[in-house]
Structures are given as C-alpha cells and as structure tokens.
C-alpha cells in the first residue's frame, strides 16, 4: 500500500467526524482545515468564478490568494485553507460573489 502523510509522521489522530460538501458526507480528522478535509476526499475545487464560472480550489494554501473561498454554514467567502472544519459543518460550493442566490 502507498504511504500516506499520516504514516510519515506516525499520526495518531483523534476520532474522525464528518462534514458535508454539497450534501455529500466527508470524513475529517480533528484539526484539519476545510481545504485539507476536501483534499482528503479527493475534491480539488469548491468555487466557481464570478465572471466566467471557472472552478477554483486551493492555490497558495496560506491565506494570501483567496482562490479557495467557500461557503461554510451559509457564510460565504471563507478561506478554506485557513478555517478548521468543525463537526457537522455544511460546506457548499460558492458561486459568484458568494452573496447571491442560494448561498
């Protein structure tokens, strides 16, 4: 089996919990950011751009670029790379400014 980052640092994480992304349940390890949880689930985009509707996800990974903006529990424009994923969080793909429509 392929090695994982958790193996590398001999991680013994606390119990996993779940959040939802566009209705789909995904597992989260304690302390992971929303972006880390989404990456673990194989999801790399969670926003579409205002002008052309292109998909976006993590780019800089440290809160500078704002590409990874996402809506969490109805609050738009959260930086997924900074915000910890909390149990039960409802994460939804963000469209447009994040303030329009169903978000």
């Amino acid at each position, binding site marked *: 089996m*392929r*090695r*994982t*980052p*958790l*193996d*590398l*640092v*001999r*991680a*013994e*994480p*606390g119990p996993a919990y779940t959040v939802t992304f566009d209705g789909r349940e995904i597992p989260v*390890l*304690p*302390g*992971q*950011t929303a*972006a*880390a949880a989404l*990456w*673990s689930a194989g999801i*790399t*985009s969670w926003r579409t*751009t*205002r*002008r*052309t509707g*292109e*998909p*976006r*996800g*993590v*780019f*800089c*990974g*440290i*809160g*500078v*670029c*704002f*590409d990874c*903006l996402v809506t969490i529990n109805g*609050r738009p*424009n*959260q*930086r997924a*790379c*900074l*915000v*910890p994923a*909390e149990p039960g969080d409802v994460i939804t793909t963000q469209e447009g400014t994040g303030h329009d429509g169903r978000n």
Partner: protein
Amino acid sequence: MGGTEQHTLVVIGAGPAGIAAALAAADAGVRVTIVDSAPQAGGQFYRRPAAGLGARRPQALHHAWGTWESLNARLQAHIAADRIRHLTDHHVWFVERLETAFTVHALVGPEQTDPDTVTADAVVLATGGYEKVLPFPGWTLPGVVTAGGAQAMLKGGLVLPGRTVVVAGTGPLLMPVAAGLAAAGATIAAYIESADPKSLVRHASTLARNPAKLAEGAQYGAALARHGVPVRMRHTVVRAHGTARLEAVTVAALDAEGRIRPGTGRRIACDTLAVGHGMLPHTDLAETLGCALDGVRVAVDAEQRTDVPGIWAAGEATGIGGAVLSLAEGEIAGHSVAAQLQGTDPDPRGWSAAAKTRSRLRAFFAAIDTVYAPPAHWPESVTDETVLCRCEEVTAGEIREAVEGLGAGDLRTVKLLTRAGMGWCQGRICAPGVAGVAGCPADTARRPFARPVPLGVLAGPADTEPNRHH
C-alpha cells in the same frame, strides 16, 4: 522612555524571525506580545500538524527540527512565566501610529470577523513572505497549486493535493517541497527547474562559505534520487492541461537566452502541479506605516530598524533568505528593541554571532537569487486568453490592450484600466505576472488594509468583543 514602567513590544508574526525577536527582547526583560494569524507558533517554516492530528514524528516533515524544539522550549518557558503573551488566530489588518505608541488592530479567529487591539511602544514586523508564481496557460486549473501551498497543506493538514505531482518553477524551495511530497507518498512525475545549475559555479566562493546550506541541498538531492524523481534542469512548464481539473502539463527545454526550444515540448500526465518562482516579502503593514522600502522589501539598518521610529522589521519581510537568516535578524531586532525601550546603548557585541550569520546568509541568498531566475522570456509563452489576475479574471489580452491601445505604462494604470489587482488578494498574486506581460516594473502597491476588514468592525468602536469561535 525609561523609568520603571515596563514597555511593551508587539511582535507581528510567530515564525522564526518573530520568535527570535520576542525571545531576545524577553530575555532582556521587555514585556512582549506576539500577535500571529496561525493557531500555533512556527510560521510557514515550522508549520506543524494541528494538535488533533496527533503527529508523533512531526520532524519527518522538517529540516533542523532540533532548532525548532529549542526555540519552542524557550518560548513556552517565557509564556509560562508571563513574560511573553502569544495571541494566536489574530490577523493584523492595520498598525496605527499614535503620538508615542502604536495600536495593532487585528481580527480574531479563522473567520476574521471580530476585532481585537493591542497597544505597543515598539513593533517588530516579522510578517514573512509568500510565494511568487508567474502565469502560464492553464495555471488557474484546480490541481495547480503553489509549491509552498502544497507544502503548507502537507505540514499542517497531513494531506496531499493528488497522487502524481509535477514540481516546477525555480528556486531552492522546490527541493524540500518535492522531497516532502515524495516522502509522504506522492509520486513526483518530474522536477522541472528553469535555472542552469552550472551558473552556481560563478558563485562558488560564496557558496563555499555556507557549507550547511550546501549540505541541506545535497540531502534533498539525495532524497529525490532515492525516490527516483526525474529532474529536468533548464526546463519550464509551458502549459497546464485539463478541463475541470489538471490532467497533464507540457514541459519544454530552454535555450541559453531563456526561450523555449522549439520541438522540445513533452506532455507529462499528472493530477497536481506544485509551482513557484521564488518568494516575495509581506510589506503591507510597513508601507502603510510609512516605512521606506528597498525594492520589494522593507528597508532596515544594521539593527533591523526601519526608518519609522519604533518600528523594526526582521525575516522575510526585509528580504527572502530562509529560516536561519530570519532567526539571526529577529535576534538582532530583539536586542535593539530592548536597548531602546530600556534607554540603554545597544551593544552590537551582544549579537555579533547573529550579525555574522546575517552577512554570510545575505550574501548566499543574493548569489542564489541570480541563479534561480525565471526564464527571461516567460511572458512570450503567456497567451492572450491566459487569466493573469485570478481574482478579477483579467486576461493577458486585456492587459496588452491596456498597454498598446490605451497607453498604460505602469502597474497602477494597468490596474485602473483592467481591474487586474483590484480583487480579494489586492494584486499580491498577480502583480509580478501582470507587470511582466505589461512590460513595466512590478512596483509594490499601497494596501492600507493588510487584510479585508468588515465595515462593521471599521465602523464600530475600537473595543474588543470576546473571541467567538467557529
């Protein structure tokens, strides 16, 4: 100043420079508050997995872990003794200059909605840096991440962006990134560096004075060889392919002038591209305070003082040079602040070792900078359709039209005519790319707000609400 009243130093940033400054000042008896945006100390370099992940061997993702352990032990001892206060999750958006003091304005928590303020007699700006990425067709596809971003997500969240990674760009950061990703289980399909290692020879004597840095490079090189990573020097990524996400990249060889060699393009399947072209200092707070810059970095004197009384700067903010240089600069700044706040004459003998390290490493990174340069003609590969400003989705064609059709000749006018750099990131990401394509200098923009600040916070009284967590 002077008297028995204890003065307060606020250090902004808890990376190597900030911690070193805080420790030196606290050792000398100064009250220190560290204000930092992360949940735990360490900055980008010593970013650690979140506590809940229970990492037993975090050092597996780090170089020089022993240095961190001793720094952190000293920091924790000062915190326990109430000599240093560490405010985590505090995102500083403004430093206000009052008559004899400063007010540091922060937003608390990952959502950055609630205000907090700290008053300071002196401030050390240890705000670090961020990665520079030059644009190429396809660079906005999900799966294309900065090299530092991939590393940060790995170090902090123990996650990989994908399974098959191409690491590309230029600069010494790419090596630890590739080595770390490989160690954590990713397949590195290619390591693409645009620099020519032969040019290192020109700086042989400078490099020889830094055996530790050479050994570090050799270690990473060995790690890449061990993982069987194909290394291509004098190559560059020409295009990223994919629709909803990255599927492959095309890389090509560069000629001696830094142009793509026709017919050398080769497609490499991958789900991730980790790319970077060096680092840029965070200078927003310094600029708004009125500190002079030297090019893109904060200008400091031998004691790490800026030209604004009461403001020091250390680490990447004053020029990119890595953790060891940051530690040296931070230490010098801490000593200098302590002397000034306590009304004593600063004694450079107290930091002579740090000063020596600083000169040696500044020379080293100056040499490194000339070697690891992006291909000279990179803008030629940027097609008109390529989005340069990721926030406002401004294409290279629109930038070229502003220059050729409307007479823009500088970054500010290009911005006003096209909106490039007006979005959420305020041009931090796109400025080098836009400037390169426009053919004008990448001047630093004034950013009065170092971070977005809710109007309700701006409007409200400057009082503080309890920290409301997510």
